[in-house]
């Protein structure tokens, strides 16, 4: 099988239109304002997000979607990661694939019914992420399931590492869902989002390294910084290549579970390492809340956790977990 990883003209157009919209309406700086956090800015842009076709992108036309593939969805998810868009937008992309009937699916595609991520924490309930306005939860529980948000019990707000999302702790217990094609697809979109974080932090670090001077020259001229940036680029490239290779070959006879787990593992590693390196390259400034670098680090931890964590991916890669 020959896999061409160069985006087609259509793919480029989709990605660029989404990126342009996000750069204009949901720039990362918005998160400095509490009023725009927790999915609020996304809610304000909901009609346009829906109009961009995000929520039916990979759904068959017969089922009310645009009939594109997982590769296109992954391109969009990566763009969402670049802009630290609320994870609920990714959940909304996944939800229509899980809808049990046409009416719910159509309402999800149309953005009228809204979904948010919830993840299961062992036997002990879980977290609901940016759930304001959502009636349904895309429950990440080993596999994935779409459930009514009422089934979550009464979520109670908690503070968590990423203060730019609103997290609620649920006390209801949920069964684990089995891994299946739908959960592999969901995992790939989370991996794509994490890849976006890895790339955004690489670019942010490079831009800073070119302008910031110490010892009379741009810090990017020093090998210590240059090689750190080169490693960031390499990790991001590996995550990107694996993510899109897995997406474009999805369902074509390879083991999608292993391919998706590899993408998630590499994307988690790249996002966390690059977000950390970005802070390091920004020095003292990177350590402050005034610099956006920390937003990526915190979101990377949240997304890595939603995706299930590296130990789960590792066990799946060797077939020692379901």
């Amino acid at each position, binding site marked *: 099988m020959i896999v061409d990883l160069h985006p087609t003209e259509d793919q480029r157009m989709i990605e660029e239109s989404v990126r342009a919209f996000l750069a204009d309406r949901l720039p990362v700086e918005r998160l400095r304002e509490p009023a725009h956090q927790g999915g609020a800015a996304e809610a304000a842009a909901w009609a346009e997000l829906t109009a961009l076709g995000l929520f039916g992108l990979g759904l068959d036309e017969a089922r009310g979607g645009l009939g594109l593939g997982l590769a296109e969805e992954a391109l969009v998810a990566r763009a969402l990661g670049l802009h630290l868009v609320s994870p609920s937008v990714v959940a909304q992309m996944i939800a229509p694939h899980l809808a049990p009937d046409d009416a719910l699916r159509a309402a999800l595609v149309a953005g009228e019914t809204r979904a948010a991520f919830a993840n299961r*924490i*062992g036997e*002990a309930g879980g977290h609901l992420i940016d759930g304001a306005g959502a009636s349904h939860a895309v429950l990440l529980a080993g596999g994935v399931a779409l459930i009514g948000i009422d089934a979550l019990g009464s979520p109670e707000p908690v503070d*968590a*590492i990423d203060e730019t999302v609103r997290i609620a702790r649920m006390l209801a217990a949920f069964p684990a869902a089995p891994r299946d094609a739908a959960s592999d697809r969901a995992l790939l979109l989370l991996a794509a989002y994490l890849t976006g974080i890895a790339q955004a932090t690489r670019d942010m670090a490079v831009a800073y390294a070119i302008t910031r001077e*110490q*010892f009379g020259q741009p810090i990017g001229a020093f090998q210590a910084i240059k090689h750190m940036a080169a490693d960031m680029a390499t990790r991001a490239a590996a995550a990107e290549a694996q993510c899109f290779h897995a997406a474009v070959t999805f369902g074509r006879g390879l083991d999608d579970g292993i391919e998706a787990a590899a993408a998630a593992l590499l994307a988690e590693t790249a996002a966390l390492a690059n977000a950390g390196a970005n802070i390091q390259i920004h020095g003292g400034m990177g350590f*402050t809340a005034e610099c956006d670098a920390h937003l990526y680090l915190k979101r990377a931890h949240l997304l890595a956790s939603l995706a299930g964590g590296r130990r789960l991916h590792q066990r799946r890669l060797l077939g020692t977990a379901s």
Partner: protein
Amino acid sequence: MKIIESPELDAFRDECRAWLADNVPREKRPPEGPAMRDFDLAWQKRQYEGGWAGVSWPKDYGGRGLSVLEQLVWHEEYARAGAPPSGSMFVALSHAGPTLIVSGSKAQKARHLPTILRGEENWCQGFSEPGAGSDLAALKTRAVIDGDHLVVNGTKIWTSYGHLATWQELLVRTDPDLPRHKGISWVICDMRTPGIDIRPIKAMSGLTHFCQVFYDDVRIPLANVVGEVNGGWRVAMTTLGFERGTGTIAHQIELSNTVDRLIAAARDLPAADGRGRVIDDGAVVADLATLRAEVLALRSLTAASVSRGMREEVPGAEGNIVALWFGELSRRVHAAALDLLGPRGLERGGDHDWPLHYLEAYKWAIGGGTSEIRRNAIGERVLGLPKGPSAR
């Protein structure tokens, strides 16, 4: 290589332990702000009154005048007792005070050492600048002599507790025409002087410990210069010998406690897949065991550093090895915590706020010299490798 022991040291240790057991504050230390500062000052006052302030500081100024061995024992017992971090007293106790002891005039010592030990006044540091972080000698804050005063203009950044301190140890450029390392003076700055504007900076952890400080025609008496005018670089460099490598013992023991806490959590928490405990995963064992070995090595590296410190007046560059090891290890320990605690570990608050400690841990590889700067120093000053053409 030997164990240093004597009945006297044992007795001193027992004495430390007994006093600490009775006196370490039981109330929770406020995380930031004036309440935290007041807590720190009160705790210092209590130590002073108990006779434990400045174990190795000169007796004339309120210290105990004991040797580095007793100082070491005190640091160890202090940390083991879970006594609070010196926090907003740190610069006064571990940097400004020692600098005055080594380089201050009699009048400067008499004015400042007692108020530090009694917990009446605290200090902050004014070394880094926006354009001179890693490259301290590039500092630009200007001081011009005007009669018997210096007039200071410029800005300092990363000043810990600058908004909570009474005094500042301030490096300023008193002669811009001299080479970079010359022309710098070390000055005692009263933070209440007109013309000083203090802007707190929130860290990514949410805590506000740092400040940027702006100086607009700030007048400081020439009598506040420590050492010679234009001799500040030497003053700053010779300070470090005083602590003799003991300054990091509290952090070392704290990190060791964190690893123990993490191991306990791994034994206690159910595994993510519900089968057994987190520790049943060999990958968790490998990670935690490596961290345990590495904190033991941190303890051993600190002992080696103190062993050298007991023999050297001016510390060598080897201290960078301990600092590099600590900075990198600290970040790894806290990252491992988030990794193995799973989604619950991302919640803030709780008995031990893991995300807070994780986010704060980034500072050790950045503040006071990044890991990169430390590797340069190890390469050039410990190993004797040539300077790059760029690091002039």
